[in-house]
């Protein structure tokens, strides 16, 4: 086991009775990396995170977090982890301030200025009882307790849920700052857009299995884009149907629509033989294309190749 891995899982498996939570998960998160952990609801993200934190015990396989055994070294490990639960509930009736003081004391003392800084950034009033707060404000208090002790590893389960767009941006800035400070971030989401702009890599799970681990830069290249070309005169569909990466070709008179997987070059070269009036290429919507590629069954074959 190498020390430059913040998270390592080997064949990590959890069954709830007969029901699969996650199975055969092999995952590596490097130290200092921001890893997005993506998958639709029920994919096994929360289960994986609870295994890393030793709330759940694996049915099979093992895991090392910051080089430590989550069960044997729980005390040492949890001092270095900031955790935001996916189903956030706070113990007791404390005000946010009392609650955060408890978390600070429990972790061996935290500079209070750090807490007030975070509260200022997220614009949350700490004098109110957490129980009476809106979902968004509770989420902010949850984020503050995760970040306040500047842990080596942040494990955040659906961190942006309940945050309005402005606060989501602030949260992403906090993640970037954490990364600059050398902290590792492992954050789950069911929406790619939430992690796309901060993550170095994304790991994708579906039905309890890891289907892909990709660098974020390479996601765009893989994306399928919709292209529409307007010609001066009607064109022959046969000139376009056999091009590499081009599919769903529909020609109605001078208008051609198709989808392109990968580079546009072959399509452009073919179109250049005619007089082109206009060309529309829809931004690759990663959400629609890339994720559906993995989430739905037709992506499964390719996904297994990637995994192996």
């Amino acid at each position, binding site marked *: 086991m190498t020390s430059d891995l913040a998270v390592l899982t080997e064949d990590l498996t959890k069954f*709830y009775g007969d029901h699969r939570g996650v199975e055969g998960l092999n995952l590596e998160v490097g130290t200092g990396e921001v890893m997005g952990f993506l998958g639709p609801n029920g994919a096994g993200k929360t289960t994986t995170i*609870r295994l890393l*934190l*030793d*709330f*759940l*015990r694996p049915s099979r396989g093992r895991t090392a977090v910051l080089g430590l055994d989550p*069960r044997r070294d*729980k*005390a*040492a*490990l*949890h*001092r270095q*982890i900031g*955790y935001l*639960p996916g*189903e*956030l*509930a*706070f*113990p*007791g*009736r*404390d005000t946010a301030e*009392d609650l955060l003081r*408890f*978390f600070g*004391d*429990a*972790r*061996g003392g935290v500079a209070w200025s750090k807490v007030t800084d975070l509260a200022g950034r997220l614009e949350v009033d700490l004098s109110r009882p957490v129980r009476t707060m809106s979902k968004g404000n509770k989420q902010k208090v949850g984020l503050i*307790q995760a970040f306040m002790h500047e842990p080596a590893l942040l494990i955040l389960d659906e961190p942006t849920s309940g945050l309005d767009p402005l606060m989501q941006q602030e949260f992403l800035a906090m993640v970037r700052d954490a990364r600059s400070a050398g902290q590792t971030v492992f954050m789950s989401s069911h929406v790619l857009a939430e992690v796309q702009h901060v993550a170095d890599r994304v790991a994708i799970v579906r039905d309890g299995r890891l289907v892909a681990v990709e660098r974020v830069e390479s996601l765009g290249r893989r994306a399928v884009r919709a292209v529409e070309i307007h010609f001066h005169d009607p064109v022959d569909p046969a000139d376009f149907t056999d091009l590499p990466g081009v599919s769903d070709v529909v020609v109605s008179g001078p208008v051609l629509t198709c989808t392109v997987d990968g580079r546009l070059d072959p399509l452009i070269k073919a179109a250049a033989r005619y007089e082109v009036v206009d060309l529309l290429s829809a931004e690759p919507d990663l959400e629609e294309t890339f994720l559906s590629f993995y989430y739905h069954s037709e992506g499964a074959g390719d996904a297994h190749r990637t995994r192996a």
Partner: protein
Amino acid sequence: MPTALVRKTWRDDRRALIGWAVGVAAFTTVYTGFYSQFQGAAQLKQEALPQGMLDFLGIADMLSPAGYLQATIFSLIGPLLVLMCAITLIARTIARPEEDGGMELLLVNPVSRPAFAGQRLAATAAAVTVVAALPGLLLLLLVPAIGLDIALSNVAAAGAGLVALVWCFTGIGFLVGAVTGKRATVLAVTGVLAVATYMANAISGMADGLGWLRWLSPFHYFIGTDPLHTGWHPGALLTLTAVGVVTTAIGVVLFDRRDVGV
């Protein structure tokens, strides 16, 4: 200095604790203080009730000061109050946060699982012990103040017995919560066990063939030894304490082995 988790546990239990402490103290003071006024009524009650009923209620006689205290404070309502306090509070150590979701943020406390369980239990056990000790401590003041003719050592023995009884059921309640994580299960199992063993002790004194039953009942070790008349019975108190300690230890071990929050 108690740990942050212990202080947090006390803070979260504060309202309930104050309520129970006030209730138990008021009950003890009021009943004891009315000894002289109740003498006439007590005599009537004793004459009106059949002997079997008195035996069942653990009332030997209501006329002597010791008999009166036994009948009022120690036989039924006193143990009922402190056990209800203990069982509801012990259900909060693990089962309640586990059910309402607050457990995850408690459990990220950087201590091992056994230490976590131990600290939660220590905080609650200390609080419950104070509540359970209140009747005995108050009686040590009230008995001489009112001029009741009972040896203080005997009062202390009965008060200690109530604490030991509470430790016994606190341990059992902790074990159930540590294993199941279900609040209703803690309340049901421990409550039913308390009622059943209370009945077993009561019945064993009435029916000849059932005398052995009392040895299974914590209430026998608490009050069956008649501490207000006969003083200290260390063996009985240690038996109750041992049940509490052993069930607690098993609870900590089993909590360390299971999934939390599923």
